[in-house]
């Protein structure tokens, strides 16, 4: 296999050494990333082993599957159970998300037609292949997945295709997190994928209003370590900025074309994050002119009501950095990837699931 420079051992060693030296005289401090892929890659490459002892990197609400409100899952279940039976298409992780009344997977087991797709285009193909059926795409994710959905909605689509949207906008959520001055987070590792769309100037509020360090990072070990090193330097020098540590993909203003398409299709609204509650301006809702594609409007349905968190679950605390997965009484005992009790144990990006799969055992 060809050598990927972003996984170069000498580069990793150099970055690790710089991290250790820069952090040497700092008191214990905590950085937060807000991206499921960051957590996944940190676990997969065991990057926490390389961090200075006084530095903790925790996972914020970065997994789009985890933060999708239980009410949205409940609504999708209702849609899947309509008569005549529609095809409800969504991502693999979404079907397993447990809520009090079950999951989409259980709904499928009792006869609903729930299909796993890899992207919105595949859902459109299902609609083309089944012209006599209604096909509903249950769409979750941040601006990274919302942008392709928006561009699809601007194209010609089969009449039997509609969408149930539960998209969220990252910068507004980071703003809400940072505004909570009790969270004790010194800096934020910002998600490279989402920043490809939104850019990084949009995060200027982090240093300017909250005095927090910020760095956009990619997803290879070298990218992630470079991002963390930038944050540690900002903390050490007490000069917070928004650093771009993913310049090969991210521009200051992001992708204006994608932003324009997003703005044409979606409007920003206040929206719920599972276990966290309503965060202002974080939801992406279809604009009125796209309402005929809105599954809720098409089938005359409203949002279901559902409890976000099952009894005993700490996901809401874990997603805001107030608790670590092993500190939850359900973790690994009652709540496992085979039988998840909360959203963080569900998706590949879920903090609890990642920690369960890649436990940081001593003496590994």
């Amino acid at each position, binding site marked *: 296999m*060809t050598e990927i420079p972003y996984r170069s*051992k000498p580069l990793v060693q150099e970055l690790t050494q710089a991290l250790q030296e820069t952090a040497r005289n700092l008191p214990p401090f905590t950085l937060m990333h807000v*991206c499921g892929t960051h957590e996944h890659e940190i676990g997969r*490459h065991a990057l926490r082993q390389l961090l200075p002892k006084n530095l903790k990197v925790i996972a914020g609400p970065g997994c789009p599957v985890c933060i999708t409100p239980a009410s949205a899952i409940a609504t999708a279940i209702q849609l899947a159970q309509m008569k005549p039976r529609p095809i409800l298409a969504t*991502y693999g992780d979404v079907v397993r998300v447990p809520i009090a009344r079950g999951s989409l997977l259980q709904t499928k087991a009792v006869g609903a037609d729930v299909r*796993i797709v890899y992207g919105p285009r595949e859902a459109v193909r299902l609609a083309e292949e089944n012209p006599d059926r209604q096909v509903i795409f249950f769409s979750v*994710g941040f601006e990274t*997945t919302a942008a392709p959905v928006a561009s699809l909605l601007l194209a010609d689509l089969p009449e039997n295709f509609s969408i149930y949207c539960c998209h969220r906008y990252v910068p507004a959520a980071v703003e809400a997190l940072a505004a909570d001055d009790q969270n004790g987070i010194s800096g934020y590792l910002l998600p490279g994928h989402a920043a490809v769309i939104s850019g990084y100037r949009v995060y200027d509020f982090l240093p300017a209003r909250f005095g927090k360090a910020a760095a956009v990072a990619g997803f290879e070990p070298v990218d992630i370590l470079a991002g963390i090193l930038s944050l540690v330097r900002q903390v050490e020098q007490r000069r917070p900025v928004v650093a771009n540590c993913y310049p090969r993909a991210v521009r200051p203003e992001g992708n204006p074309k994608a932003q324009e398409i997003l703005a044409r299709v979606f409007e920003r609204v206040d929206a719920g994050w599972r276990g966290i509650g309503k965060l202002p301006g974080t939801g992406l809702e279809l604009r009125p002119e796209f309402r005929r594609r809105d599954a809720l409007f098409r089938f005359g349905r409203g949002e279901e009501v559902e409890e976000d968190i099952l009894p005993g679950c700490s996901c809401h605390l874990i997603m805001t950095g107030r608790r670590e997965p092993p500190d939850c009484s359900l973790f690994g005992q009652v709540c496992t990837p*085979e039988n998840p009790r909360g959203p963080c144990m569900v998706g590949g990006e879920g903090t609890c699931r990642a920690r369960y*799969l890649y436990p940081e055992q001593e003496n590994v």
Partner: protein
Amino acid sequence: MSETIRLAHGLGGRLTQNLLDQVIAPALSGADGHAVTLDAAVLADLAPPVVVSTDSFTILPRFFPGGDIGKLAVCGTVNDVAMMGGRPRYLALGLILEEGLPIEELRRILISIGETARRAGVQIVTGDTKVVEKGSADGIFIHTTGFGTRVLPPVGPDQICYGDHILISGSIADHGAAILNAREKLGFAQTLESDCAPLWELVAAVATAAGTGLHALRDPTRGGVAATLNEFARDTGLQFVLEEAAIPVREEVAAFLEVLGLDPLPIPNEGKCLLMVAPEAASAALNALRGHPLGRQAAAIGRVEKGGRRGRVILETRIGTRRVVEMPLEAGLPRIC
């Protein structure tokens, strides 16, 4: 003859006879003294200790780059016999056909079964065909049972010692990547091909070279290398340490999995063999593997160490960190963020 399978093909009358005579028997011919059309077979020359293995096959799509459900149904079972040190000799074949299956498709699958069986050195000695109503099965389900004689010294988890070297007979994750690409029409290059192949010849070559230094063999099918090594770890209490940089993964497979955010370790293989070999026999075993067409890319990928509190699998990453490789939970799904 009709163009698709009808319920009457399974009722034992003239259509059943036609199917047997015109489609099934010709594809599977070549057996001496055995007729696949018989309900039972006497295996007079099968010496003890007899190794038997049974498996069902339901894969979608039925045809994929590098193989089809028929080839898989032979390889899967004969490889399970081989992994116990048994030379596969005979196969019993059960077919469950869904009403409406194109007969041409059945014929292609049977020809593939016949060819693969001949290549694997096994005879199909008895069989059964059932037809179920449309909707009760998905095209075709195949069940095979394989019989062989154990000719190698005992191999298995109880023979594994700390200090053993971990060898793999070639690149990993080929089968799973090819199936995922074909099934989900992900549209990646058609260079993704299943590695589906019968392994007895390869195993026999290694066994000759390594002698009693060959301690355990297993084909890392479902759950891939991650599952197989975790099973070994659970059964032995030992620690299996893999070196990420030494594990052969074809470039196009690595790129495909990278795009989907999938780790190659839990991805299935259908023509690969993991071997635990004593250190003094390791280089002879590796040379024997590389001397066989199915083992050209064979590599030493790790070692067995004394366990801690319990057996486990550790990956030494490319960048020099170490992490636990857990037993995989379910088929990998592409990531969305």
